[in-house]
């Protein structure tokens, strides 16, 4: 058993912290989210220079062949500054899928440009009726010569506006809800028939609704096996869960710090309010939740690269349930202990709270994952995590 980060991981963390301390102060973040694009290409380029975009990519395509522990290091650092650049959609979901499922040609075409920051990917999977049930996909891909024609509507595609290439899930067979028959396609966002409506989300990230109307793609746009896309999506979402759990750790750590500092300085009734036991206990509860969430996030990070799908499924469900619950408690109490100032736009605490709230709503909320875990538990004992 070893909880230590490697020398390289510590260096990566320090480099990211240095970069974000310098280039992502709260005021700078405000400017970035107020810009038309809502994110910064400059920051993205600097993340590329640090190697943060390529850390998980195969070595053959300019990557460092890292693990989910590396992702954890990156995401926690991004969480501490509530970075809005589309790291999860473009790198964790998009590039992760291409790395795992892409042909040599697809990897060669896309991944080096992902590593350099020139190519942004996004996963266009969710639809109006999907909610958190990944198999509920109605978008169709019908064969057309050697290629396909795609028709359907995708909603709340994270990073969909910034993306150059979408990974679109569509049915080549089966009906919504059926696990078989979903295929993945690489679709250029400028292809004829692709319409995007891009907007901000409550945490100042960006998402898009995507309408596909008779979009023609070539046969080599198929990513992974025809009809076998759903397990790929599921694994991508599990990687996404591990990533946002780690991000939540960064967000929560800052919220605990901000709140502890605030109650030490805010005076009412002649004393710092941190001297009131009820608030001390509240903060102690916040801290304990963060530590429990941290443990589950470590467990998720050491599991999510496993080839054992059943194990991954259970551990990510458990992690997202616990981190979701912790995020809710820590976020709400951070606001509560800040009092009125906590609900203002001016105070950083409200922005951390919003990101934490939306992390809770992303890739399934705590109730969803608790239910999922509970269903899996009923089918048999949880397998022990193994190296």
């Amino acid at each position, binding site marked *: 058993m070893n909880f230590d980060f490697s020398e390289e991981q510590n260096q990566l963390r320090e480099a990211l912290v240095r970069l974000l301390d310098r280039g992502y102060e709260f005021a700078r973040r405000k400017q970035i989210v107020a810009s038309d694009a809502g994110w910064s290409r400059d920051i993205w380029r600097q993340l590329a220079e640090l190697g943060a975009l390529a850390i998980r990519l195969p070595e053959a395509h300019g990557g460092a062949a890292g693990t989910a522990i590396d992702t954890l290091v990156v995401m926690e650092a991004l969480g501490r500054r509530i970075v809005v650049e589309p790291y999860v959609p473009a790198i964790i979901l998009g590039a992760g899928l291409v790395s795992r499922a892409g042909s040599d040609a697809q990897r060669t075409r896309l991944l080096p440009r992902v590593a350099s920051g020139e190519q942004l990917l996004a996963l266009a999977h969710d639809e109006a*009726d999907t909610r958190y049930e990944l198999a509920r996909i109605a978008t169709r891909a019908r064969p057309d010569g050697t290629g396909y024609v795609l028709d359907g509507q995708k909603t*709340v595609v994270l990073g969909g506006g910034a993306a150059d290439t979408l990974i679109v899930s569509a049915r080549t067979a089966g009906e919504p809800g059926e696990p078989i028959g979903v295929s993945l396609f690489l679709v250029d966002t400028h292809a004829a028939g692709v319409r995007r*409506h891009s907007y901000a*989300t*409550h945490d100042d990230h960006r998402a898009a*609704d995507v309408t596909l109307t008779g979009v023609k793609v070539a046969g080599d746009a198929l990513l992974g096996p025809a009809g076998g896309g759903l397990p790929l999506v599921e694994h991508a979402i599990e990687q996404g869960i591990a990533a946002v759990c780690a991000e939540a750790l960064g967000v929560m750590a800052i919220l605990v710090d901000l709140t502890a500092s605030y109650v030490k300085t805010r005076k009412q009734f002649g004393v710092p309010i941190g001297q009131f036991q009820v608030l001390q206990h509240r903060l102690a509860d916040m801290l304990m939740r963060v530590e429990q969430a941290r443990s589950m996030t470590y467990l998720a990070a050491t599991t999510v690269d496993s080839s054992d799908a059943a194990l991954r499924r259970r551990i990510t469900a458990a992690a997202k349930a616990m981190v979701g619950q912790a995020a809710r408690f820590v976020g709400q109490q951070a606001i509560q202990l800040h009092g009125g100032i906590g*609900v203002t736009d001016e105070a950083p605490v409200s922005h951390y709270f919003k990101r934490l709230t939306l992390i809770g709503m992303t890739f399934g909320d705590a109730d969803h994952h608790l239910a999922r875990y509970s269903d899996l538990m009923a089918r048999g004992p949880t397998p022990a995590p193994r190296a």
Partner: protein
Amino acid sequence: MDLSYTADEQRFRAEVRGFLQTNLPQDLRDKVLGGKHLGREDFVGWHRILHQRGWSTPNWPKDFGGPGWNAVEQHIFDEECADAGAPPLMPFGIRMVAPVLMAFGSRAQQDRFLPRIRSGEHWWCQGYSEPGSGSDLASLRMRAERRDDVYVCNGQKTWTTAAQHADWIFCLVRTDPTRRQQQGISFLLIDMKSPGVTVRPIVTLDGDAEVNEVWFEDVEVPVDNRVGEENQGWTYAKYLLGHERTGNAGVGMCKRWLKAVKRIAAEQRAGGRPLIEDARFRDRIAQVEIELMALEVTHMRVLAMELKKQAPGPEASILKVQGSEIQQTLTELMMHALGPQALPFQPAALDAGYTGALSGPEWAVPITGRYLNHRKASIYAGSNEIQRNIIAKHMLGL
């Protein structure tokens, strides 16, 4: 004991409902039920419609031109108005400053202000909190120095809801800095048009700007605008806070939100079926429905007590804590019912008549912002920590 409604009360409910069906403008109803932004004219317009019927001040006794309703009638009125989608009545005039004026104001103040509150001519706001004085309100520092027949006021109030619309503000000010905290405070009525008053909006985390900072720089206030005795303002302030807390239960609004949660859960689909068929989610709705059912009865018990004693006691703190927590639970459930569609932030679509592009259904637009915004409910009007202190001290003797 009998908790059922009498025939008279049922007739009263039918009368209120009939009035609302006829007199609540459809566009206003649509705005309220659709969670759209409401402007000053929306609130004032509705207030005037109620005034014509004599119902703009549901909590006032007949002596002051109110309808003289008992606790049950007030509750029925509140419930019907909320259910119909009427804009909420702004509490600052009718529920806050008016009871203080009735109890402690001079005859001249009553004659001057109460009819204008009733008619909607005067919009009031509340000048209590200051940047350094929230939970510890008695530490407030806004100064009012007596010079002949005026007070010269300097200082800052904050979290002032709707100050940008207000004609008048009632303020707690320090008239004697040498006396112990609670004893040097007076209660002043200040015209917002006075020279030296500045209002600055505070943008809240949902992007809205309903609260403000109000600055006072050498603002001259006639001594006639002091309520009651100089340096006795704390007594009046506490009286008012009790009324504020009673009004914060928000049972009618919660009932409407509860209906909304059920409607959303019936429309949203999970696993190919309506979300309401998911037993886990339905349990959450059931839990809050039971809590709200209890709160409704507790609310009536406190109102009934209030009518006998003429002033709410520490029991009002129970309403504040339970009411705010139920509001927060309901806003959170609505957000969770949306699933991924809770993410988009589309503030432009909160304006009535918005015709631009939209992600998801229009009714979903206000929901996440409402959740974020209602974190305030356990903070304002005496934080829930303060309310629990009051309960511990005044109801348990701890």
